[in-house]
């Protein structure tokens, strides 16, 4: 297991380097001129040039890349061009928020997805299965930003059960955190829970048809025990793989959900960086997201090895 962990961590280094390189050069294709964007349309050409020099974007691309990379490996992701703040400081403030949101979304996705998937698998072909199958199809089809808008309107604006936006100044205390995270987490988790439900259902149906299940039932073991001790455990392997993929999807989906609920997380930071041509912020955002995805995948590999002894080798 340790060897697997070390191997995966070592493999992540060139991957992160590749991501950094790719994103840096792709960011240059953004047509937004940051100097012009900062100074506005009335700024003179000389002023824009002076700003470009101040930002360092008038230097050769490879020089810019080399400087950024050498600073980045030392933990310095540069300065936000628009407000002068250190990108690492800004990211540090925002990472916990997005992690909390993604965790909330994942929790909902796993709890709801697995539960409904298991029920649908056990009741395959019956009305319960049909309802869950249709609902999961809807869940996958509905974009999370739309779900977010609907949730905000009905459960916050109309019913007043939850806050419509992230509390300005940030939530105070765990209860306020949870309250603020409920609707965004649901919006984020619906599609993932639908996907997980479908995967769980098909995995359960497959496992329930296996000989050892039939044998266990023939031996007179209670259905509940057969399901909980034999079926779910074996059906969970493909589901865990899917959950790992869903983490990346949740991080991607948080871009829109954060915007709609005005959550000061990584997603809204990334969107703002893209629209303004704020390259240091964009690079910092992408690197953090890439790092999280890499770490989740490593965790996924490890859990896969734990669940399936054959993988451990």
């Amino acid at each position, binding site marked *: 297991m340790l060897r697997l962990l070390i191997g995966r961590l070592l493999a992540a280094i060139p991957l992160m380097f590749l991501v950094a390189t790719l994103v840096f050069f792709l960011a240059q294709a953004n047509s937004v001129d940051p100097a012009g964007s900062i100074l506005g349309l009335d700024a003179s050409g000389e002023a*824009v040039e002076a700003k470009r020099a101040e930002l360092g974007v008038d230097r050769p691309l490879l020089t810019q890349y080399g400087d950024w990379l050498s600073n980045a490996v030392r933990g310095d992701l540069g300065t936000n061009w628009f407000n002068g703040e250190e990108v690492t400081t800004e990211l540090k*403030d925002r990472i916990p928020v997005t992690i909390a949101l993604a965790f909330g979304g994942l929790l909902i996705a796993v709890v709801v997805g697995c539960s409904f998937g298991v029920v649908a698998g056990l009741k395959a072909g019956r009305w319960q299965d049909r309802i869950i199958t249709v609902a999961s199809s809807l869940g996958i089809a509905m974009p999370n930003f739309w779900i977010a808008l*609907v949730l905000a309107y009905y459960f916050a*604006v109309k019913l007043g059960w939850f806050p419509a936006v992230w509390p300005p100044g940030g939530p105070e205390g765990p209860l306020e955190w949870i309250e603020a995270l409920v609707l965004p987490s649901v919006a984020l988790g619906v599609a993932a829970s639908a996907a997980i439900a479908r995967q769980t259902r098909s995995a359960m149906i497959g496992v329930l048809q296996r000989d050892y299940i039939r044998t266990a039932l023939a031996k007179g073991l209670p259905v509940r025990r057969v399901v909980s001790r034999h079926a779910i455990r074996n059906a969970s392997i493909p589901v865990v793989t899917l959950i790992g993929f869903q983490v990346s999807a949740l991080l991607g989906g948080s871009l829109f959900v954060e915007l709609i609920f*005005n959550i000061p997380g990584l997603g809204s930071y990334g969107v703002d960086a893209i629209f303004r041509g704020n390259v240091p912020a964009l690079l910092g955002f992408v690197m953090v997201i890439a790092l999280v995805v890499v770490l989740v995948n490593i965790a996924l590999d490890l859990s896969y090895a734990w669940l399936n002894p054959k993988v451990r080798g």
Partner: protein
Amino acid sequence: MTGTHTRRIVAALTALSLVAAACGGSDGDGATSDSTATEASTAESTPEATDAAEIVVEAEEQPVSTEAEPDEEVSGEPATTEAPPADEEVAAPAGELRVASFGPVTSYNPAAVNSAQFGYLIPVYDTLTRQNADLQVVPGLATAWTRPEPNIWEFTVRDDVVFHDGAAFDAQVAVDNIDYHATFEGNPNAGTWATFVEARVVDDVTFQVEFAQPVPQFPLSMSLIQGMMLSPNALDGADLTRSPQGSGPWVHSDADSQAGVTEVFTLNENYWNPADQGVERISITSFPDNNARLNALITGEVDVSTTIADAQIDAGLDAGAELVAVPNFFPHILITDRGGELNPALGDVRVRQAIALSVDRAAYSDAIHAGRSDTSGGIYPSNFSQFYWPDFDDKNSYDPERARELLAEAGYPDGVTITMPIMPAITPPVELIVQMLGASGITVELEQINNGELGPRVLSKEFGITWLRALLDHPAGNLPALAIRPWDTFELGDLAEVDDFVAEAAVADDVEVARELYAEAAELMLDSGAIIPLGHATQNAMVAANVDGAVMGLGMQDPYPHGVRVES
């Protein structure tokens, strides 16, 4: 052993999941098209959407002075700006004013930011002048101002103002500030200072600002970002990005703020006018999403929401919020190719007039501004009383039949084809224009460009006709900037008379005479077909019912926090 234990935990968690499944859950699938949030996100030209296309046409150059005129007193008595008499009881500031703003602050240096940042800077900086609810310029740090000569403004300033860092404000500090703004490299408001000559001290409380040409709108400009006064200690190149150094009613609290998210301001205990300080604390949070900004107001998360889209106003009003709006946007069609260089048809004034007659301003208002824009045919709307000219109300009213006749008279009985730019941020209005012109036989071919490219590509003469949205302010700078500088791209000079009218108005003694001269200049622009109004939209903010005293001025996206009180 450990493996078995953890697997039991997994089994227990799964059992928990089953219980949750048994409990079920409501999906809340009742989303309908009447959802305010959904409607607002799709059915209007959102402020941020059009911001990308917005071409700020504030004064870049002032008209040439024709003759010198004597003094003109323009000071007034503001509701809240004058310090109350010492014996008058002022209610103590109480509570917090929570504001939802469109975007984050980029810098606290007023010489380095544009008007979009006004709301963040105004709590900490005082301006020389202010605006009242009637959009009139009233005293701020300056108590009075006169124009001893057409090109010179003389200001008298308060002698009791102290900056947050303890430095005193006087005429010399004001002059140094003027120099700082006027010479700051990359100042987005450089247009204000285009003809600036010098600022000089007359005495401790009096200073003069001289321009190469008359600048009648200068006192108005001094109520905006460009009129914000910095501490003398900050004028030597201090980094003001996160450290404002002003004299305003509140002090920026960096410790309580989170850059890019929320800015917090606390009470300035030594402020010269306690009547301005209705609240103890102000927090301004960035809400880039329109729906989130409105929802936050409706659910009581904030007290003021700025940059509210027209289509959202009814939802806000229905929820008990109040609207604070000022005339601001002037969407129009600009025809620069009046010489017919790119398209000979546009060189014929009858074709340009046919385009103007094909525009249904009421339909434009309904489709783009939720029926809320002023449909007057002039350049200034009816709620811009100082420069509104009622005679233009029905100018170029929608008449497709007459448009077709004009096209035929111009030798285009089968219609004409023109090319206009379109980019994602301006798609709804441009597509509407295509439909409206099409009904009169004018075919519009659209050329797709990227957001942010509209201004530069029109200026480089790639297009001879385009949709634009200007910001309205004083006609002395506004009128020439709409179609002459920088938009006379083909160097036709056919609107030179506009400059003459504006120059004459700038030195006119009588306000009515000036208004008439501005109206004549506007008529010239309208009749030439250079400018085809599509309507006049407002800059909107909404305040909760428990907020009292919110006032917004021209060129502002946020109401003043001065004098605002929040009932608990």
